[in-house]
């Protein structure tokens, strides 16, 4: 874990309100790990957590949706600007032993970390990505089969990605997206007894496990999304009804 100022190599709007931010830096990062980003001084108070979207020899990149004060500031970054970066953080996932067929199920901006999973997993990967309207983040996406859904019907299946996802064929499922979607994926994986990992999201303050504001409810009590997660086993996470 380092705290560094990194140079912006690219900050491009790839779809409406969706930006890809590429920063110069060499890191060892596991899929599912994240960084705390800050491109401002005092306001907003807290830094913002973003999962790793992609990584190269000399760069790390993030895919983010402009939603509030922090992402609005990030969206204004230009090449050569600097961003303060703390990370990599979180458990991430050891993917070296993954075998068989893997399904990555993502919804909306939750697809961001799954891009890097797809890149790093050696085994067979099928991807199920659901969007509201516009499709993004799939350029150079590595997989065997790509299934897309949009709620508007603009691209692919019209409806939710969970309508067309069946875990039966898979040895492992990894999912990230809105809670309602992940809950549904968990339910169907339970029926077929398919091993599942969930990537949880939370508002964070410290990002390193000290402040306990980002906890998620698990069957073993409240756990820290930033330190014990963000990758949790499917059966571990308790969704409130």
């Amino acid at each position, binding site marked *: 874990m380092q*705290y560094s100022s990194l140079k912006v190599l690219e900050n491009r709007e790839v779809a409406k309100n969706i930006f890809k931010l590429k920063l110069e830096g060499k890191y060892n990062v596991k899929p599912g790990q994240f960084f705390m980003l800050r491109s401002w001084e005092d*306001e907003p*108070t*807290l830094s913002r957590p973003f999962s790793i979207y992609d990584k190269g020899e000399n760069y790390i990149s993030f895919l983010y949706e402009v939603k509030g004060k922090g992402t609005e500031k990030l969206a204004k970054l230009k090449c050569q600007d600097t961003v303060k970066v703390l990370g990599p953080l979180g458990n991430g996932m050891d993917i070296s032993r993954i075998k068989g067929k893997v399904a990555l199920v993502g919804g909306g901006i939750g697809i961001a970390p799954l891009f890097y999973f797809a890149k790093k997993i050696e085994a067979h990967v099928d991807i199920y990505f659901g969007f509201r309207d516009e499709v993004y983040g799939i350029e150079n996406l590595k997989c065997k089969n790509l299934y897309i859904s949009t709620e508007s019907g603009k691209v692919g299946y019209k409806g939710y990605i969970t309508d067309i996802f069946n875990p039966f064929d898979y040895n492992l499922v990894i999912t990230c997206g809105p809670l309602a979607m992940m809950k549904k994926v968990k339910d169907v994986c339970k029926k077929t007894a398919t091993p599942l990992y969930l990537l949880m999201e939370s*508002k964070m303050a*410290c990002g390193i*496990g000290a*402040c306990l*504001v*980002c906890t998620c409810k698990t069957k073993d009590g409240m756990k820290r999304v930033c330190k014990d997660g963000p990758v949790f086993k499917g059966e571990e996470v308790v969704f409130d009804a």
Partner: protein
Amino acid sequence: MLNISLWGKTFKNPVVAASGTFGFSREYNEIYDVSILGGIVTKGLTLNKREGNEGIRCFETSSGMLNSVGLQNPGIDYFIENELPFMKTLNTIIIANLGGGSIEEYVQGAEKLDKSDVDIIELNISCPNVKEGGVNFGIKSNIAREVVKEVRRVVKKPLVVKLSPDAEDIVDMAVTCVEEGADGVSLVNTFKAMAIDIYKKRPVFKNVFAGLSGPAIKPIALRMVYEVSKAVNVPIMGIGGIKDYKDAIEFIMAGASLVQVGTANFINPFACRDIINGIENFLKEEGINSINEIIGVI
């Protein structure tokens, strides 16, 4: 130059990491050597393990944040067995923050901590996020008096009482704690506050209220430290939105012997380190030989 001797202990500098923002120091120690700090206050501890509050626990506000963690902690026995040995390997003063829901719980917790290797006990009568039995010990001086009196009876170590800014009269509260034997006071804890989700038409937090911290509270916290320092003759730890060395020096000039840094650790993970260096540079540039010369000069 930065050394301060209080309660028979020597703090290498006046900068202390505040409770609840620094865990049990393992995480920040991965970023930098936290032995450089004057002291570290543990996450708030209770007699038994607590899971803390459900739902959203954090909400950002202008120049600050609200938290509703609700004293999630592994319990005092676990702390003494599994966290304290690590903290004692750090070359800094370890302050245990003690929370509770009843006088009995406070006293039993205090007995255990008093027998442990912690250097100082900070009695937390001011957490706004736990509402067991409907009593908040930090609002009325006569209720605080009972807790401090009973805890003092069983604590031989230095005992500092952490005050709530929501106290009816912060000066009277501090005086009462000192009358009951507190060796020092630390102030202020977070302010009881709230936020509303206007689209869902309901409070953001399940508990409705949450604690406000960060730069937003600094001027009020500073005023309270100043007022209390005029009324008591025990050392004060100043807390409240301190984010840089200038803020820290303001609190010291207002009467604090030590300062606690909390939310600033989230703004800048090196905040405590930067504040220590900043204070040292300030003293050099101003030709001041020792931090002790500026404590309470206002």
